C-alpha cells in the first residue's frame, strides 16, 4: 500500500485545526506584553472556561466522545464564545466586576498571566487554553499546572511556564509595583525578562518546545516516523495477545 513519506504528511493535528478555525498563531517564539497577577491557587479548568456557560450555547462548543471538535466552534465564521474567567469577570447581573484583575487598567491588555499553584487542574478542557488565547493570553507562569491543561496549552500556542512559587511571587510583586512595564518571555532562549529585574530562566520539555517554536504538532511527525516499528510491534502483539484483536461472531448491531 502506498504510504506517504512522513515529511509530506499533511498537518491535520489539533494545532493546525486551531489555526484554521481561529486565525490565531499556534507558533510561539518570543512574546512581549503586560503581565497580570491572578494567583489564586488550585484554579480549576472549569473556572477558566466555565463549561456550564460554554455548553448551553450550542454554537460555542461541541464535545464528541470526549474529543474537542474545533470546527463546531464556528458561529457565522467567527468565534464568539464567552470570555475566559467568565465567573470572575462578570457579576451575576451581567455587569463587569471591577475587582477582577483583568477588568482593571493596564491589565485589560495583559497577555501574560502570573497564576497560582496547580493552575488549570481538573477536566480535560481544551477550552481553558483556547479561551485564554481568545482573551489575548500567550503565556501563563505558575508554580505548577494541572496535568491535562498543561499538555493542552501546547496545541493552542499558549506557553505554560513553571517557576518556583517564590519566583512567581517575586515576579508578581515586581509587576504590582509597576504594572505598565512589559515583560518578555523568550521560548528560544527559555528566559523571562523584564527591565529592572534579573532574567529568570525556565525549562520546557524539548519536544514540546519544538512544537511551539514550529507552531505545529511535531509529536505527530515523530510518531509517524516510527510507524514501521509500531506496526511490527502490533503484529507481534497480535500473536502474543490474540484475544485483544479477535472479535469472533459478534452480533450485528
Amino acid at each position: 500500500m502506498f504510504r506517504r513519506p512522513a515529511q509530506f504528511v499533511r498537518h491535520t493535528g489539533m494545532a493546525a485545526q486551531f489555526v484554521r478555525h481561529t486565525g490565531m498563531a499556534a507558533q510561539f517564539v518570543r512574546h512581549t506584553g503586560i503581565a497580570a497577577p491572578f494567583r489564586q491557587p488550585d484554579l480549576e479548568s472549569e473556572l477558566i472556561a466555565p463549561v456550564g456557560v460554554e455548553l448551553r450555547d450550542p454554537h460555542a462548543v461541541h464535545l464528541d466522545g470526549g474529543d474537542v471538535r474545533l470546527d463546531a466552534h464556528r458561529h457565522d465564521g467567527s468565534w464568539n464564545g464567552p470570555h475566559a474567567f467568565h465567573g470572575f469577570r462578570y457579576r451575576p447581573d451581567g455587569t463587569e466586576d471591577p475587582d477582577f484583575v483583568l477588568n482593571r487598567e493596564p491589565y485589560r491588555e495583559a497577555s501574560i498571566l502570573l497564576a497560582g499553584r496547580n493552575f488549570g487542574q481538573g477536566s480535560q478542557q481544551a477550552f481553558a487554553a483556547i479561551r485564554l488565547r481568545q482573551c489575548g493570553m500567550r503565556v501563563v507562569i505558575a508554580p505548577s499546572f494541572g496535568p491535562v491543561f498543561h499538555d493542552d496549552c501546547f496545541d493552542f500556542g499558549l506557553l505554560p511556564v513553571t517557576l518556583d512559587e517564590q519566583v512567581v511571587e517575586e515576579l508578581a510583586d515586581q509587576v504590582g509595583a509597576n504594572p505598565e512595564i512589559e515583560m518578555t518571555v523568550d521560548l528560544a532562549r527559555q528566559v523571562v525578562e523584564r527591565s529592572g529585574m534579573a532574567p529568570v530562566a525556565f525549562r520546557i520539555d524539548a519536544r514540546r518546545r519544538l512544537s511551539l517554536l514550529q507552531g505545529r504538532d511535531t509529536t505527530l511527525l515523530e510518531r509517524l516516523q516510527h510507524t514501521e516499528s509500531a506496526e511490527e510491534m502490533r503484529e507481534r502483539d497480535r500473536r502474543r495477545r490474540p484475544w485483544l484483536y479477535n472479535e469472533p461472531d459478534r452480533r450485528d448491531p
Partner: protein
Amino acid sequence: MNRRDFIRTSVGAGLLVSAYPRSLFVRLRAQGGRGTLFDKIWDAHVVANLGGETDLLQVDRCIGGSPTQVMRLVEEGVELRNPEIFYSVPDHTVSTSPARYDDPALGWGWQPYEELADEMRELGFTKAFGQFDPRYGIMHVVGPETGLSQPGMVLCAGDSHTCTHGAMGLISWGGENSENILRTGTVIRRRPRTMRVNIVGTLGPGVCAKDVILRTIAQLGTDSGTGYAVEYAGPVVRALSQEARFSVCNLAVEMASPTGMVSPDDTTYEYLAGREFAPSARYWDQALAFWRTLPTDDDAVFDREETIDMTGVEPQVTWGINPEHAIGIGERIPDPDRAPANKRATYRQAIEYSRLTPGEPILGTPIDEVFIGSCVESRISDLRAAAAIVEGRRVASTITSAWVVPGSNAVKAQAEAEGLDRIFADAGFEWRESGCSKCYGSNGDYVEPGHRCISNSNRNYIGRQGRDTNTILASTITVAASAIAGSIADVRTFL
C-alpha cells in the same frame, strides 16, 4: 527434548540471549526489582525510547473518534490504522430525558447520535454505540462492562476520568487527542514516577469505596499525585468488589494523577469472564495466564508510598469547592482562619461560595437536589445499594429534584429486571436514561442556579453542575439517605 528443556541447555540459552537485543537486558538490569504493575505494562508497550524518560507507546484501546473527525481524515487522504482498537460512545452531550430518542424539542440535548454511530460502523469502526444500542452508556461504565477494558492494556481517551479503567489492572489516562492515535496507534508519553497508596484498616458500617478515595484525597491533597502513576493497594482495596474499585480509581485524577490502577486478581477476572468483548473461550486460559503475571511483585519498589488508615473513618462528604474538601459526616465545617496557610485562600472562597458557616456541623445542612449517577458509581451494585436505603421510604418534600441515572443501557435494563426502577419511583426519584447527565451539567441536565445538590459524582468545582450551584460529594448510599432526610444525613442511621 521439549522447548523449555532445550532453553535450559547452554546452546539453548545462548540462542535465547542472542535472540534479544542487548539493550533489553541493560534495560531490565537498570530496572531491577521494579516489578510494579505499572512498570510491567509500560515496558511491554514501548515502541521506542525517544530520549530521556520519554517513550513512544503502543495503544491497545482508545475511546474516541467521531464520524466527523474520521471522515475529515479520510477526505484528506490520511491513512488510518487499527480501527479495532477504538470504541466510541457519545455520552457527555446526550440528554438523559426519556424523550431523548424522539423529541428534537430537547434541542441541545437531543442529537441523532444513532446515525453518527451507523456512519462510524460504515467507516470500519465497529464499536460505535449510539443511544439506542444496548451497549450505550457512560464511556467509563461501558468499557469494563462490555469487556473492552482488560488487564495489561494501555488505554487512552480524551476524557480525564479515563483513569477509572485502571481498576481492571491497566494503564489508562485522559487528555489524549484521538486523531493522532487514529493515525499512528501510538502515543508519546513521559514515564511518570510510581506511587502506591496502601489503604489499611477496616471499613466501618456505611463506609464504602467512595469514602475511601475521598478520605485519601483529603489526606494527601488535590495536587499530591502530580507526575505519579498511582496504584491503590492494601487489604481494603483487595476486599473491594470490582465495581467498587472503579469508584476508587475514578477519582485518581482528582489527586492530579492521570493514572490510577489496582493490581488485577480473581475479582477482576471473574468480573470480566463472559463479557461481550472479553477473551473468548478459545483464548481465555491463555489470557488468564498472561494476566496473572501482571500484579505488582512483593519486592517491587515504588518511588513513593503512602498509607491511609480507614479504621474509625466515618462516611465522607465535601463542604467546599474541590474534592479535597472532604470531612467525616460527624465533623464540623472548617474555619478558613485555622486552615494551613497555603490553603486559606481556597478555604475562604469555598466558604463564601458554598454559603456555609464555619464551625457548624455538616450533618443536617439542607439540600435542594439529589443526583445519583456518573462514571463514579452508577453501576448495578451502586443502584442496588441505593435502592436498599430508599426502599419503603419517601424523598423529602423539600427536595425539588431527585434523579437516578443508570450508567449504561445495560445497567438500566438489569435494574429494571430487578425492579429497582419501581423502588426508586415509589420513593419519589426520577428514573432516567443513561448518560453523564447532571454530573457535568452541560447536556441540558443541570442543577438549578442557587441550588445545593448532593451528588455521588466526582467534581464539586464552582459551577460544575450548573451556574451558581453547590455540589456536595458523597457516596451513593449517603446521597440516597440524604434524599430521604432532605438534608445531609448519616447513612448509618438508615442501615
